């Protein structure tokens, strides 16, 4: 069968006839899990300090982590093929949920991001974070690469609908990240240099349009404040000034665990959610930051390795997108906390408090593991 030939070609040099080991049969990538566990463990330490030594918060986070791990392993069992087949339906489902949020979502802290179900309340935009790369990867993997103008247009529409819906919730950070995760796939799929160049040229008017038609006043304010935090030192500029002080005052080796004054005396805003890296930087210094970055680098490295080793185009695009989006989280979070980027609500992966973000990340890792562990099975089953 041509199919089998194709698979054989793909698996040349990878030991086609190799019997899958037990980790592959369980669809678990121990290296990835190991790095994730280390970061999660370190995160709990930082969270303990950042939460003002509130053990209940730490325990709750640990429970989320456990649930996340279970979810990750379950998702790892789902074959990429199934995902591909289901992708149009989950996309439509996701968009319906987003529309539902706009009409019947729960208001919290000035935003409408949640849907309340009898036992659980959840944020559809988090689910979109997973759906978006699946859908775009699935769409493009069925087309000829590099993508044609028509394909690009379709992809942009696929990306655009949820991005605008989420931006109106309003949740600018998530909306941009989701947009980015879709665009990454376009880039990975070999978007032509000419087009990338013209996209950059197009970026200027589209940023203008975004500024005027999509962004809300408080979102604009954040950007303006970012450009000049001293313009409002006691208001919107406060966060960024204080987090820079927290990071900088940590110096090379930090003030020591539980000894960060910026966070413990509440100068640092949102110290156990979005700004938790500042707590780490204050208490463990540059060294602590480098260790965390190194751990992240290992996860990203593993993710890119999985991407390169993926058998199918869908797998490659999806794995690449998930890995790069994970990196973008880290970059945007640390960038905003250290004053490089405007403050958009992006948590620090695996460290910031919060079950939703954790669940999404774990699910993403689950997809990575699924991509990595289903290839030999694929080969043998045919």
């Amino acid at each position: 069968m041509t199919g089998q030939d194709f698979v054989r070609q793909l698996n040349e040099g990878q030991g086609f006839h190799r019997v899958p080991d037990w980790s592959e049969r369980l669809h678990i990538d121990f290296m990835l899990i190991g790095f994730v566990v280390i970061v999660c463990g370190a995160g709990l330490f930082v969270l303990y300090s950042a939460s003002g030594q509130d053990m209940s918060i730490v325990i709750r986070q640990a429970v989320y982590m456990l649930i996340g791990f279970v979810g990750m392993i379950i998702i790892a069992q789902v074959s990429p093929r199934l995902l591909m087949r289901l992708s149009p339906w989950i996309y439509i489902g996701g968009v319906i949920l987003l529309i539902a949020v706009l009409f019947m979502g729960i208001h919290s802290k000035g935003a409408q991001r949640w849907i309340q179900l009898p036992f659980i309340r959840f944020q559809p935009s988090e689910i979109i974070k997973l759906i978006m790369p699946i859908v775009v990867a699935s769409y493009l993997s069925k087309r000829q690469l590099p993508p044609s103008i028509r394909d690009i247009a379709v992809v942009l529409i696929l990306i655009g609908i949820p991005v605008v819906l989420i931006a109106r919730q309003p949740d600018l950070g998530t909306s941009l990240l989701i947009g980015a995760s879709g665009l990454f796939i376009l880039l990975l799929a070999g978007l032509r240099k000419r087009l990338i160049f013209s996209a950059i040229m197009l970026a200027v008017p589209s940023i203008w349009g975004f500024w005027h038609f999509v962004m809300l006043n408080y979102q604009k304010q954040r950007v303006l404040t970012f450009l000049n935090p001293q313009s409002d030192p006691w208001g919107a500029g406060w966060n960024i000034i204080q987090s820079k002080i927290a990071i900088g005052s940590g110096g090379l080796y930090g003030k020591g665990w539980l000894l960060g004054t910026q966070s413990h005396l509440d100068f640092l805003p949102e110290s156990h959610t979005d700004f938790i890296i500042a707590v780490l930087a204050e208490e463990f210094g540059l060294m602590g930051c480098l260790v965390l970055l190194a751990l992240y680098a290992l996860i990203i490295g593993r993710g890119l390795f999985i991407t390169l080793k993926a058998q199918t185009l869908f797998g490659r695009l999806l794995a690449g997108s998930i890995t790069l989006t994970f990196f973008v989280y880290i970059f945007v979070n640390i960038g905003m906390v250290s004053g490089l980027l405007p403050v958009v609500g992006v948590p620090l992966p695996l460290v910031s408090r919060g079950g939703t973000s954790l669940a999404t990340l774990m699910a993403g890792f689950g997809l990575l593991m699924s991509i990595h562990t289903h290839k030999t099975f694929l080969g043998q089953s045919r």
Partner: protein
Amino acid sequence: MPVNTLKDHKAEQRIVSIRVWLALVFTILLVMVLISRLFYLQVVQYDELATQSEENRVLLQTVPPVRGLIYDRNDRLLATNRSSQTLAIVRERVEDLDQLLDDIARLINVTETERSRFMQQINRRRPFESVPLKFRLNDEQVALIAVNQFRLPGVEINAELVREYPESDAFAHSVGYVGRINERELKNLDPALYTGTYTVGKIGLERFYEPVLLGKPGYQEVEVNARGRVTRVLSRVNPIPGKDLQLFIDTDLQNAAIKAMQGRRGSVVALDPKTGGVMAMVSNPAFDPNLFVTGIDYATFNDLNTDIEKPLYNRATLGEYPPASTIKPLVALGLLDNNVVDKNDKIYDKGWFQLPGSEHRFRNWNRKGDGWIDLNRAILRSNDTFFYKVAEKMGIDRLHDFLSQFGMGRSSGIDIHEERAGLLPSTEWKRGAYGQPWYPGETVIAIIGQGYMLTTPMQLAELVTLIANRGKHVEPRLVKEDIPELQSPEWGEDIELDDQHWGLVIDAMEKVVSYNRGTAYWRIGRGLKYRMAGKTGTAQVVSIPQGEEYDAEKLKEFERDHSLFVAFAPVEDPQIAMAVVLENNNGAANVAREVMDFYLLPKLARAEQEKASAENKRTAQ
């Protein structure tokens, strides 16, 4: 999958692989950006940001001193500090200030004054300093704010020491009051001493003794959190509390004097002749000084300020009245001392006096005249004609020089700032003030304490004290303890006169009260259980230096004569000397009698009792 077969999978995978490697390069570049950013903050900017973090955390706080208390002579509190709940707002923690103020106003009553005062203050405070909006919250208001705290970000309830005057209006003019430091005062006050202190003495003792009442602020280095809440104290230098003051004032006597005045306008000053201590200083009507402590609202202040009866005005030291006949004992001393009159000289009073070559008749108060009369009798009858006749011989300048020894025309030096000097005219003064010579007729009215001459009740009390002490000087003082850097006597030479002269005048003054022809006998002389020396006076009101709009009834009332009385008792051992002025009214002597009875009768009874028990002991032995 049929689609797959049409595609060049290898080429596609290669494209993706290249892009993945490219992405890796970008990722590494961006990580380098993050690391260099962290390096910049944590290494390059470390010193600066570490300092800022320390400045964030450590706050040098001043600890305001506790203001000194004020006690009367019997250790009764006249000014104290009471802990009070204040609602304050930290601007930095409020998103919409107007909205918040509206929300608060819906819960508890916030007046326009409170709100506008707050808005003024909010613009000149240090970051994260709380600005008070409303003082003296009651328990209910505190509870209302507490239960709504969650929707009132930036609002805090602080305990603050607030000045309180337990005796309310009784000491409004002597103790005075403190009030919020205003813009003008802010420029003159030493900021090092007033950090953390929001009030300053405005009038009375509170203002005069401000430097000693205030104390000295301490300071502490505290660790604060972002809300400015102190989490721990790192080091502390305690404040030095303000000095407590003890007064000569006798609260019971003061209240007795207020009661005796029966709400009439005027003033009572009672001095202890032994010390000069002010035992009572009443200016009626008065006001509640507690209204001013945390800021009086405009309407209330306006009512007080425009009140026709001038409750804000300290009549005891600012009120200038013609001394009228109360000056006669002093004039008599001057006449004797200058050998203008001998104690045996008699004149005939037919009821009026005319200057040679003038048709103008200077009338005696008793139109019928008192007949043959000597100096002693001229005092007890308060005969004007006698003094008219000797006026020109005495001359205004000799009169001026003699009277000025008694402190007339000069501040008494009482230890409050609100004091006027009165006016003791002379030829020199008139040239200076009017550019005119002194006319003989002016001496004739000056010698009976009318015309230009003006005195304050405090001065009248001082001069009667000098008579009681036979010239021995004492300084009028409210505060017992000597604080030389603040209390400076305005005058203070003892007056050396022939003892017989003192005797004659004091005898005449005693007769004013005790002899049935004395001017005060029928009013207060009967049934007196101690020997009182006094002198009546009736001052003509020529013009009223008050505002414009009042009704005719009132206007007429304000044109009536003032009634004056100076006295001391007991004559043989003076324990109280006092001056009473009732504006546009009569009965000053009755007030004096009531006050003296209140003060002396229990004392005399006690002395009597002690004497009796000593007697009993002796007989028992």
